[in-house]
């Protein structure tokens, strides 16, 4: 076989002075980059297989390893970059579709950095959250237009309005849909535990809920997706809310595929499919070809759950997302989740991940505006997702109009993910996106949960500080409050879609 045209993307530098041939790297690397040659008592490496996950460098006891990005030095060209050329080599070799994982990694993807937050000076005192109450409690679900009271009894007015079911969050952050199958049992358990410990919710993804996780039900949102994996009445009963997954920001318009080799005994039970069979989620739901079909599914789920659980509908942010979201609210959804084009995934065609859909910033602003124009904003909560990197992104999203956000990538990074973007290979050295028992053991769910709770706590503290600076002590006064946002480096058109003023205005 001739040598491949595709060149290594990483350099593995081993300091011979430091290396003690302990072979930790050999055992840690599922991509078999490192190998031990007993004859020469030397650890050698095959850089071509390196994905840059940094597992070996992190665990090397003598810090002998350095992994560096090594873009092949083709002739300089701003148009035909090395990534472009390498991709063509790969496709010329296989005739396949280019695959990627995690979120869009192209250069210009985030508008959050063009939005700045306000703080109080003189005319309005800022609030110190360490001394004063600062409230992040968030309720997700349909709200009526008005509260009606009964005045007939002696003891004062009583409530005539019966509130639709609500999810109560201690902080406006939830964990995005990541299915057991896409992520490991231990990663799933870490997320579920952390959601319970911090008083928020994790999303099961579309792969069902293993019976072991049923005790976490009160903090789980379970998904009903086009594959209907793992959906039965117990699944719906055990959860706090049900989410109909229509689309995903990383791959709007296409379905999903969990290869059969990942479907072991436990996943087969969870997904309710035979061991070793491919789990294929079709692109559309085959019973939803219109908004009225969606309404039927929403109400089927409401009937099945006795109207005691909020029903969410998750869509990818696409061009006419505002009109679609309005239709979803009118179809009876209690929550609309919108996933922007920075959203992560376990596997997506690269071209789709990087080119389909619109950024969450614009989608969220458009949806919130549209629902308000139609006077139906209170009928459903809006959850934004897709690439939230920090508490500042969260605050900006809430000020633009989100009730809460889903975080996926950030949660996995908290669990140790190094964003090598190779989830689809099933060889995750961090034990997150793999089903190989040798690898999944590396993630301890107790430690994982603790790290996730720490992340939620840290972000919540920061959100409180930012709110306090604005002179706001309740999250409901931040929500949709675009007066506290200003844009820098944005065109008039972008500012007007975001509904914010330019810095200095």
């Amino acid at each position, binding site marked *: 076989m001739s040598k491949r045209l595709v060149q290594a993307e990483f350099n593995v530098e081993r300091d011979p002075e430091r290396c003690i041939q302990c072979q930790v790297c050999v055992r840690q690397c599922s991509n078999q980059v490192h190998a031990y040659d007993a004859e020469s008592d030397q650890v050698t490496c095959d850089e071509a297989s390196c994905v840059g996950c940094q597992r070996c460098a992190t665990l090397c006891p003598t810090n002998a390893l350095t992994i560096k990005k090594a873009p092949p030095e083709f002739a300089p060209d701003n148009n035909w970059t090395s990534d472009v050329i390498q991709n063509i080599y790969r496709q010329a070799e296989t005739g396949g579709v280019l695959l990627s994982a995690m979120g869009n990694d192209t250069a210009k993807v985030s508008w959050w950095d063009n939005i700045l937050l306000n703080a109080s000076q003189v005319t309005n005192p800022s609030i110190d959250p360490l001394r004063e109450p600062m409230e992040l409690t968030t309720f997700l679900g349909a709200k009526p237009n008005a509260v009606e009271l009964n005045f007939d009894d002696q003891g004062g007015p009583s409530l005539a309005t019966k509130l639709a079911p609500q999810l109560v969050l201690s902080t406006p952050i939830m964990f995005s849909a990541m299915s057991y199958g896409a992520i490991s049992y231990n990663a799933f358990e870490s997320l579920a535990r952390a959601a319970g410990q911090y008083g928020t919710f994790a999303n099961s993804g579309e792969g069902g809920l293993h019976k072991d996780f049923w005790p976490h039900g009160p903090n789980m949102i379970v998904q009903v997706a086009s594959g209907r994996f793992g959906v039965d009445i117990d699944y719906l009963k055990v959860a706090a809310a049900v989410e109909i997954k229509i689309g995903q920001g990383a791959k709007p318009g296409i379905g999903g595929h969990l290869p059969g080799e990942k479907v072991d005994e436990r996943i087969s039970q969870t997904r309710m499919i035979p061991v070793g069979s491919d789990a294929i989620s079709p692109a559309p739901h085959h019973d939803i070809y219109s908004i009225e079909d969606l309404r039927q599914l929403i109400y089927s789920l409401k009937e099945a759950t006795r109207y005691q659980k909020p029903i969410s509908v998750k869509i990818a942010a696409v061009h006419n997302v505002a009109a679609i979201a309005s239709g979803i609210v009118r179809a009876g959804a209690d929550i609309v989740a919108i996933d922007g084009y920075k959203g992560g995934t376990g596997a997506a065609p690269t071209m789709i991940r990087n080119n389909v859909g619109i950024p969450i910033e614009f989608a969220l602003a458009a949806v919130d505006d549209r629902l308000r124009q139609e006077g139906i904003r209170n009928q459903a909560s809006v959850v934004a997702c897709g690439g939230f990197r920090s508490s500042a992104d969260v605050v900006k999203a809430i000020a633009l109009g989100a009730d809460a956000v889903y975080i996926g990538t950030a949660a996995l990074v908290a669990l140790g993910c190094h964003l090598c973007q190779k989830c689809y290979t099933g060889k995750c050295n961090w034990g997150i996106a793999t089903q190989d028992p040798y690898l999944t053991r590396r993630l301890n769910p107790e430690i994982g949960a603790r790290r996730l709770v720490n992340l939620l706590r840290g972000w919540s503290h920061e959100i409180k500080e930012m709110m306090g600076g604005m002179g*706001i002590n*309740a999250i409901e006064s931040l929500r*949709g409050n675009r007066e*506290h946002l200003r844009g820098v480096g944005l065109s008039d058109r972008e500012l007007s879609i975001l509904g914010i003023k330019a810095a200095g205005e």
Partner: protein
Amino acid sequence: MRLLHRKQFPTSKDISGCAISGMMSETGTPMSGEAIIRSIANMHDRSNGLGGGFAAYGIYPEMRDRYALHVMYDAMDDKQETERIISRWCTVYGDETIPTRPSALVRHRPILHRYFVNIKPEVMERFCDETEDDAIVDLVMTINADVQGGFVFSSGKNMGVFKGVGFPEDIGEFYRLDEYQAYIWTSHGRFPTNTTGWWGGAHPFSLLDWSVVHNGEISSYGINKRYLDNFGYKCTLHTDTEVIAYLFDLLVRKHRLPFEAACMAMAPPFWPQLERLPEVRRELARTLRIVYGGALLNGPFSVLVGHAGGMVGFNDRTKLRPMVGARKGDMVYMASEEGAIREVCNDPEVVWHAAGGVPIMAHLKEPEKVIGPEATARLKAHSCRLPAGAWQEAPRAGRAAASVQ
């Protein structure tokens, strides 16, 4: 030179610090404006001469069932244009120049005129289930949006707003308020920090019978405005005060919440305080908070809201702006500073600092006797009043308010 009465809708949110004072006779005994001028003058340093104003209830007894439109004009052309609109919409039962007393301290006055009107029956036919009040709101918004130099600053029945650029005591003298008799007076001295004053931008802000004077800054303004947009209110003045007036209109007039519940929605207890309520109240308070999140007023404020049946004073839930209440006989006083009350009331029976978020309320005891049957019926349709003791407040931080039911 710039005319200070020319419409200057600020392009960004108006920020101001202020003095407020209000007094009411719960038996409806008429009082001249002399006392309220003294009271607000006592807090001279809380304003900077860029705005002062008053609202008075019960001042037009002969015209008590007509809407009294107070309008300010830049020029006679604007007056003619506005009057064309008014005569298309309304039957006019009387109109006159608003009497003023020339003063060296009040400069650049607009043309001030008032009209006593009802909407013509044929105009009402254009509406669906809206009332005459809704039509008046429409008329006011039409004139204020369409007429370049015309601004309706008062549109209630048997009440009126008098305001302008200057210190409040000078504005009171200018409008000859000592010659009016009212059972409620509220007043305001303005200290705007980011706009030059214009006559229409002074407080009170008023729509129908609502009048609002307000000290503070609402940090939730951005969402309150968009929340109101959801219900068809267009906030064009960019003032916090406008938002407060519309929220009262929405919650009290349209959603029929008692004032106590409306104030709880706008300044709800913190969650731990709420948890300490008895169960039946807790559910109510919780639901109000969940449903009216967009109506929550955040940031420092104290506000006095006048309406035909009484006066409500309340401040933000952490009490970042001052508000003092006092009582003597049938009189109820509310002001930014105790001195402003003692200036006009020698020995009040009780004086207290309002607790954060808990409203102080004063009501006409026998509204039929004071404002007549038609206005009483309208009052009942506009606002729902609870019997004394029917509302249990959440335990709040700060000194407990003496019950002022």
